[in-house]
């Protein structure tokens, strides 16, 4: 190194993962990056409607049986990209804690590998006819790791605390909850201020893990000592944390459901994704949460490993600043859309590892995605003609200049931006790339500095997520786009309770977006999750029953072959 300080500032080798999961921004980088791995999902808008995954559980009157017998063996080591900030998963967004918390705690419901809502701590729920009450039945076998039974009082404490603490991650997403009633130990009744189709999805997701009331009640939940020594109800118990290095969990032999099968679950914190791959190849870890695209072929060809593919509804998209002329003109926005060749982006920027995204809501969530509400098709001649007609003739070889803001740490997005610059240059739109570290990027884009901004971002599993990107004044409406008709449709969509009712509403909302073109969807990146083939029961494995019976990141059913 030229001087140590010099090295500190140059040559930042951050992979997207290192940045995102290393916590460049808890939650934040994830959404920017449109994350391709499970932990990132947390940062996004979760929302599955009960209609999306039609479950008609009855609230059971009594539950028989006892905790399934456990046979335990082996230690499984998982790579984790960032260090958790604490072990309390609800009071702030923490993408590094999220996958770990999924194994220590339980939420009422969870989402399986295909984004379906499945039961966890709750065995079922019913919604009242007016949509204002949701009744959850809790599993009576569930106990906290200190032996105290899990009851509806824990649910009441947790959900009311989340709503009350406006600074918590979940507070705005479940704010429809006004109170929780506890008619008996295993029944929790959520009273809502208005019907909300998206709340079930939020309760299956992120930062809504049920916390032990007997430990947290009456204390400051952000500084409670249990935040460093967590007590959960999940399949694994917290054993120890070595600062910045490892988190060790041990099987919870009193777990109420099937599993766990492994004795010890160790998270080994490895921020660099290339190092993660080497550690996997050398047998030092058994599972890594994502694979750089450059390594996919190598891992697939190496015996002894399985590689799961996963597509998240997180399209890379570029949006227009409606406050900057000439982007306030829809003809200009359409022309820019026509200049974009998505196949080229897919082939070059993603190396072919992904799919084209041309709908306004990702096709991954099939029922909610309108196949006819698409971005303008590639047609550079039409783009040129439209710009001529709109009053932006070629002056020399350029029509006007735009600044495209991107954030560092996600190589595929940087490549996409470079290709966009080329493609727009071909129709005489001069693009200047402005590359910023993510926190600065967000601040500058939100304050309206950019003409164009490019990002990813989870938009599933419920179309209610469209609101945060395109709703008037929404936190991630980086485009200053506002259409009251669109806002109105999204409000209707959330209040409607059946899928049949919701589909036409959201389809119409997507048609409005296709007419107004506030942003252009580009491509969807496929993520790859490799693990040792000695492991089975992994939640991402579509060939394994675990993919539909445990929630994301849960290693409840994982087994290790000798």
């Amino acid at each position: 190194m030229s001087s140590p300080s010099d090295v500190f500032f140059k040559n930042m080798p951050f992979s997207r993962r290192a940045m995102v999961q290393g916590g460049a921004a808890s939650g934040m980088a994830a959404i920017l990056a449109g994350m391709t791995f499970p932990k990132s999902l947390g940062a996004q808008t979760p929302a599955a409607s009960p209609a999306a995954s039609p479950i008609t559980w009855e609230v059971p009157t009594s539950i028989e049986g006892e905790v399934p017998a456990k046979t335990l063996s082996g230690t499984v080591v998982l790579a984790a990209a960032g260090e958790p900030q604490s072990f309390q998963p609800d009071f702030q967004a923490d993408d590094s804690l999220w996958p770990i918390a999924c194994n220590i705690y339980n939420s009422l419901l969870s989402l399986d590998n295909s984004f379906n809502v499945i039961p966890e701590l709750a065995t079922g729920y019913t919604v009242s006819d007016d949509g204002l009450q949701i009744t959850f039945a809790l599993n009576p076998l569930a106990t906290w790791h200190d032996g105290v039974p899990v009851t509806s009082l824990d649910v009441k404490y947790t959900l009311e605390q989340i709503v009350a603490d406006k600074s918590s991650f979940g507070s705005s997403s479940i704010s429809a909850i006004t109170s929780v009633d506890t008619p008996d130990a295993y029944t929790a009744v959520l009273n809502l201020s208005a019907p909300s189709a998206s709340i079930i999805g939020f309760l299956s997701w992120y930062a809504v893990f049920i916390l032990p009331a007997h430990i947290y009640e009456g204390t400051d939940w952000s500084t409670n000592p249990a935040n460093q020594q967590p007590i959960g109800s999940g399949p694994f118990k917290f054993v120890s944390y070595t600062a910045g290095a490892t988190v060790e969990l041990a099987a919870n032999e009193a777990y109420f459901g099937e599993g766990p099968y492994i004795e010890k679950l160790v998270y080994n914190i490895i921020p660099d994704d290339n190092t993660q791959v080497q550690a996997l190849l050398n047998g030092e870890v058994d599972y890594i949460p994502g694979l750089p695209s450059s390594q996919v072929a190598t891992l697939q060809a190496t015996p002894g490993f399985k590689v799961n593919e996963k597509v998240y509804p997180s399209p890379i998209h570029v949006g227009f600043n409606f406050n900057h002329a000439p982007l306030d003109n829809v003809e200009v926005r359409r022309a820019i859309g026509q200049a974009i060749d998505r196949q080229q982006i897919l082939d070059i920027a993603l190396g072919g590892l992904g799919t084209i995204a041309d709908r306004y809501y990702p096709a991954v969530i099939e029922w909610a995605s309108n196949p006819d509400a698409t971005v303008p098709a590639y047609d550079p001649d039409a783009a040129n003609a439209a710009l001529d007609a709109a009053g932006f003739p070629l002056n020399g070889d350029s029509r006007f200049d735009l600044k495209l803001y991107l954030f560092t740490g996600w190589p595929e997005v940087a490549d996409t931006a470079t290709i966009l610059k080329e493609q727009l240059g071909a129709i005489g739109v001069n693009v200047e790339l402005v590359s910023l570290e993510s926190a600065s990027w967000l601040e500058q884009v939100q304050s309206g500095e950019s003409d164009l901004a490019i990002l990813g971002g989870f938009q599933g599993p419920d179309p209610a997520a469209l609101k945060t990107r395109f709703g008037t004044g929404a936190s991630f409406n980086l485009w200053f786009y506002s259409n009251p008709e669109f806002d109105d449709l999204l409000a209707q969509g959330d209040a409607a309770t059946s899928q049949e009712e919701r589909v036409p509403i959201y389809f119409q909302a997507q048609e409005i977006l296709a007419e107004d073109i506030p942003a252009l969807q580009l491509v969807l990146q496929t993520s790859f999750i490799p693990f040792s083939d000695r492991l089975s029961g992994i939640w991402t494995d579509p060939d394994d029953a675990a993919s539909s019976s445990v929630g994301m990141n849960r290693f409840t059913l994982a087994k290790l072959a000798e």
Partner: protein
Amino acid sequence: MGRYISRQLASIIPTIFLSVVLNFILLHAAPGDPARIMAGMDSASPEQIEAIRVKLGLDRPLPVQFWNYVKELLQGNLGQSITYKQPVLDLIMARLPATLMLTVTSAVIALVIGTLLGAIAAQKSGKPTDTALSFSNYALFAMPSFWLGLILIVIFASKLGWLPTSGMRNVRAGYTGWRDTLDVMEHLILPVATLALVQIPIYFRVTRASVLQQQREDYVTTFRATGLPEGRIFRRYALRNALLPTVTVFGLSLGFVFTGAALVEIVFAWPGIGRMTLDAVGRRDYPLLLGIYLILAIAVSIAVLITDLVYALLDPRIRLR
């Protein structure tokens, strides 16, 4: 000598205070808002962000925030980390030993090897040995540390299987006692080698240039004229005088032992403070960053002080001035 030391010591205090002021201003002037980052993204409502801001005291005017910070600092309290919700000092102390193990070891190794090679090259100036050494040092100098680290991992951990890939301990084995110490040392080899390799060229170049310069000095010519053997002139006089700049470089490099290894810590998954610093920058964890920078400022000041003292010992002219 005593007066010299106290004068130097007195100059440290304003230096550190100035650095606290500058760090505070620069950090808050940089774009990015910790409340916004902490709120997470999509579901963040303006009320949620405001609630976090109030909770963290970021809603108060900057001078008030600064005054509160300094007040706490004077009582020896570095404050609470915004993201970890733990005392800054505890966080730093939990990671400092790992980093020091890495940086101090590699700095000493680089000093010894670099100086030695530099002296050899100077003695063989213009000969093939010199050319070869200079060339390889330039090559090392141009290598980014994280890249070199990864290459070493691929060769020594993946291909040859001699050494562990990353981390500080074998997480499966869970060794204790002397076996644990041995385990940590095994894990230390590659990151230390990486850091040492990229630092060696600094000492190499300084020593080589400095020895060459000394050999052209009048006193060396005089010694030569008196018939003193060349080897003796080199060892007893030229080399000793030539070591002064090396001492300076080493002293300054000690100032960076805290955060200078960040990239290597990331590549090798080494649980050190440099990595935490980069995380804290990304999250705009002001109290944690201020704490790290304060310790850094103190470390640099002390390193400079020690360098000055060593200088004064080596060179009487300095302490008399």
